[in-house]
């Protein structure tokens, strides 16, 4: 508890690791505290093909290199922790963990990222791993020559549906609206695939089965009609929520619980910055998270210099 870090970064996704690289390379005493897996949603991305300067690669590999870079510059990383308390006001910021440990720093960068949105319907937890999946590239081959359903209408849903056609005999996309949120090229790829069919304006209500998933109850959101579809598997890709539940009464957030920052990634609390998928912004990409993280670290450096 006695050690006071210059910069404490909460989160080790693209934004947090970028902050860690910049801050530790500037010889600031830097600590990253991370509640989830190092790499955040980069690890959840099978392939990254649009990161400038990097040819097509695996998400976990980019995350691994960022982690190595940060550590080599002297950044300390503590992951798989649970934060119990935030004290962000004042010159010294304090973070208390559930295991009783406390850490303090002169500045904090909030980079908790996002978490996959859950359906929270009956059967989702029960059939996780026995029919309900969140990763086509991980679990797709368990469904070879079987019928599967994909829930969602964004880029992930449509791209993963196309991936699943490499294994499954039939893929049905169930989406709540009458149009997709995905980019046009992803929609076109899905629409031209003969193995993919669509059920629009419908939402899942329940997953049913015995030891493994056997069917999904779906409701048409316009007519209210319920129907039960037999299936071997369901893949859920319904987007992400900012991971800011614990922060919403501590820093200023908008109605979507996204942290409000200025162009320098400053929050409403002096010495507290935010970066990545947790902030108010339109585009959430690895590139934009890295940019946010970089700006937050540089702003933290400036803040520390002015506070000296």
């Amino acid at each position: 508890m006695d050690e006071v870090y210059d910069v404490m970064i909460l989160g080790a996704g693209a934004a947090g690791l970028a902050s860690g690289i910049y801050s530790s390379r500037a010889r600031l005493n830097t600590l990253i505290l991370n509640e989830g897996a190092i790499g955040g949603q980069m690890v959840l991305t099978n392939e990254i093909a649009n990161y400038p300067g990097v040819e097509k690669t695996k998400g976990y590999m980019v995350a691994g290199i960022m982690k190595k870079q940060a550590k080599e510059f002297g950044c300390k990383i503590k992951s798989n922790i649970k934060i119990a308390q935030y004290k962000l006001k004042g010159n010294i910021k304090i973070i208390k963990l559930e295991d009783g440990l406390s850490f303090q720093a002169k500045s904090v960068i909030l980079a908790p990222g996002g978490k996959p949105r859950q359906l929270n319907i009956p059967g989702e937890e029960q059939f996780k791993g026995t029919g309900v999946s969140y990763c086509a590239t991980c679990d797709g081959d368990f469904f070879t020559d079987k019928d599967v359903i994909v829930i969602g209408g964004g880029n992930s849903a449509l791209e993963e549906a196309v991936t699943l056609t490499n294994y499954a005999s039939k893929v049905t996309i169930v989406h709540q609206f009458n149009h997709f949120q995905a980019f046009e090229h992803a929609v076109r790829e899905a629409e031209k695939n003969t193995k993919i069919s669509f059920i629009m304006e419908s939402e899942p209500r329940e997953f049913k089965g015995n030891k493994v998933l056997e069917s999904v109850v779906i409701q048409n959101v316009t007519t209210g009609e319920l129907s039960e579809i037999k299936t071997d598997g369901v893949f859920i890709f319904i987007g992400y929520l900012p991971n800011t539940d614990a922060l919403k009464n501590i820093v200023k957030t908008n109605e979507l619980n996204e942290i409000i920052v200025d162009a320098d990634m400053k929050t409403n609390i002096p010495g507290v910055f935010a970066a990545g998928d947790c902030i108010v912004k339109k585009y959430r990409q690895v590139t934009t998270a890295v940019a946010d993280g970089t700006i937050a670290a540089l702003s933290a450096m400036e803040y520390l210099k002015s506070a000296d």
Partner: protein
Amino acid sequence: MKMLETAVHEIETAAELEKITKENENVMVSCGRMGPMCIPVYDAMEELEEERPDVKFYVMGFDTPEASPITNAPMCRGFMGLPFNVYYKNGQMVKATTSIQDKEQIVSVMDQFFA
């Protein structure tokens, strides 16, 4: 042949798996790939290696026939999500879980079966 890029020791053969589980009282093996559901489990195991000296932690590639003692285990029947996480007590498989598990969930299984 090694298939996984993690700091956790990788078991490469069924014979090695049998030897390890027989020679150690408490063993956890995560059998998977380098995928988004698997990597967080390996990360958690890497940390648990320091915190739980009473348990030996290993990973094993899913796409090898050498992993068949895990992939074909009765406890893993019906599993359709990677990784398969299996727990051995005195050489016997006592628990198996499928798909991603966080550190807390892994610790909870260990506390229940390795006490």
